[in-house]
């Protein structure tokens, strides 16, 4: 649980081994193990040891008491950092319509967003949602991504381009005003990233869920923090898994590993309809694949955390309550 303790450390500012230093109410139950530093592996992770899933044992269920009114002072700060992306991820966030206002009214101040807020320099913030990959031929981009890492407690790679390069991997330069711009890398090639949220774009509901969870992690009760940390853990693991994605991940890490059971989730998730089912398993039209990584992330056999999934009903209700119900 190195990531989990690192996550708790980030948000509480406490080193797990010295809980006394913490102000009482914000202390999170400390794991016995010291936190491992977050490192970005350059290779695929090796197989992990089997762990009993929560399914077959009775696990404790963090109660989710929903907090209806909260003082404005308790909001978290979120920034949208725009690298080389199409703004589709931001549009997806905005697509929450009233839900976006609920988020901004109750949970988060958008303190940086070139498209929507009049702030030029990247300020300190709790959560940086980074959209787009970094253009190495543009020194502003390189400086900005470093600044974002410096100033944000948590860096989220929002969408396929930030996480995996996505469509920008195919760039060959030659745009009219900046023809020399041709080398784009996912942000994880230059900075440590805490959370991945793949998708082209990630759905509005996914962004909403992560925003609510980030809020609970920072401002929630101990139980809410625990739940939010458990929720975010697989997205943190994705950030450790690597900066390359392709439909081939389904072949290499699911089908070849004898894990695919033919549910078809990957087919539904693919934004470019590159996947069809052949012999009960996905087949990827590799020329169509834009390398967004969402098929693998969405596959129930990439990650399936029973401790969170078994509470799907309560979590769904909590998110609905947080959003004042009808956010559609």
């Amino acid at each position: 649980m190195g990531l989990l303790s690192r996550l708790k450390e980030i948000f509480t500012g406490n080193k797990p081994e010295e809980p006394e230093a913490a102000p009482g109410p914000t202390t999170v139950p400390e794991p016995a193990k010291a936190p491992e530093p977050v490192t970005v592996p350059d290779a695929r992770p090796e197989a992990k040891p089997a762990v009993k899933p929560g399914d077959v044992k009775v696990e404790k269920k963090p109660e989710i008491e929903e907090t209806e009114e909260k003082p404005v002072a308790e909001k978290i700060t979120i920034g949208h950092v725009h690298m080389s992306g199409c703004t589709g991820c931001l549009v997806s966030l905005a697509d929450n319509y009233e839900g976006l206002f609920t988020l901004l009214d109750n949970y988060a101040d958008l303190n940086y967003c070139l498209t929507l807020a009049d702030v030029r320099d990247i300020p300190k913030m709790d959560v940086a949602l980074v959209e787009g990959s970094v253009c190495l031929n543009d020194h502003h981009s390189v400086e900005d991504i470093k600044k974002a890492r410096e100033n944000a407690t948590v860096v989220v790679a929002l969408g396929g381009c930030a996480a995996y390069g996505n469509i920008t991997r195919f760039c060959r330069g030659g745009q009219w005003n900046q023809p020399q711009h041709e080398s784009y890398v996912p942000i994880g090639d230059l900075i440590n990233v805490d959370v991945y949220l793949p998708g082209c774009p990630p759905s509005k509901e996914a962004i909403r869920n992560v925003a609510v969870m980030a809020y609970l992690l920072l401002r929630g009760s101990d139980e809410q923090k625990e739940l939010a940390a458990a929720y975010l853990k697989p997205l943190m693991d994705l950030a450790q898994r690597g900066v390359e994605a392709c439909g081939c991940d389904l072949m290499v890490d699911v089908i070849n590993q004898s894990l695919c059971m033919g549910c078809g989730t990957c087919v539904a998730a693919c934004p470019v309809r590159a996947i069809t089912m052949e012999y009960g398993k996905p087949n990827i039209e590799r020329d169509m694949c834009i390398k967004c990584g969402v098929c693998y992330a969405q596959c129930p056999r990439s990650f399936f955390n029973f401790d969170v999934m078994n509470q799907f009903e309560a979590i769904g209700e909590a998110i609905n309550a947080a959003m004042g119900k009808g956010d559609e």
Partner: protein
Amino acid sequence: MVLGNYKNCVSARAADPAILTASQDGGIVTQLFAFALEEGIIDGAIVAGQGDEPFKPEPVVATTVAELMEARGTRYTICPNVSMIKEATRSYGLDKVGIVGTPCQIQAVRKAQLYPMGMRSVPDKIALAIGIFCMENFPYQGLETMVEDLCNVKMENAVKMDIGKGKFSVYTERGAVSQIPLKLTHKFEQGGCHVCLDYVANLADVSTGSVGSPDGWSTVFTRTKAGETIWGKAIEAGYFETKPIADVKPGLDLVTKLATEKITKNQKTLEGRATFGVDKGLRNPYI
């Protein structure tokens, strides 16, 4: 916990005799979707429709009772129902979606709701997820081999297939039954099933299967608030006959026994995967 969280469990069958003529067991899935469709609880349901080849289903979005009727019965092969889930809300424009699936497919649906990265417009539109119990599944060519080579029945002559009491049975048009011991079918199972830790669709709104109930009846678990409410309304409207599960044979004990067997066996497989090679293991999806 091998049976997951549930609110209630009964033995039941559809009240409409027309449904029972071709349903696999008690016609629970078809009857409950038909009720939900008529009541406007769902706008349509993703079911395993008839494909081009016999017993090779294709997912379809059924928006009429006639289409639900077409899809009755179990096909023991992969039908990627979840592949239609975004299609149902985006292309068909359904606001309230029903879906039937094996436990792994219901897991996929819940992941799609909690982590909907590539599932725009899906999470808030799943109105009724019905799970069917599942011990294992077979690729189509495996099923074909079992039916044609081992049972000596042509696929196009089969009218029903069933697994129960340790046997795989194929029923033909002319009323013949061909059976083989289930043991002979194991090698045709898809590998992905061997890490599966859910027998009774723990994450469904309502889950159902034949095990535990007498022939022609089904065991039904209601699991979520939505599932409980919809099931309650259907009972009130007279859509199902029910019996207390404690009053039927073989009852919940058998369900528990089979669920425990499946989970224990697959848990072992998972643990074995960690040390599958020499100082090398295979991936575990559950961590």
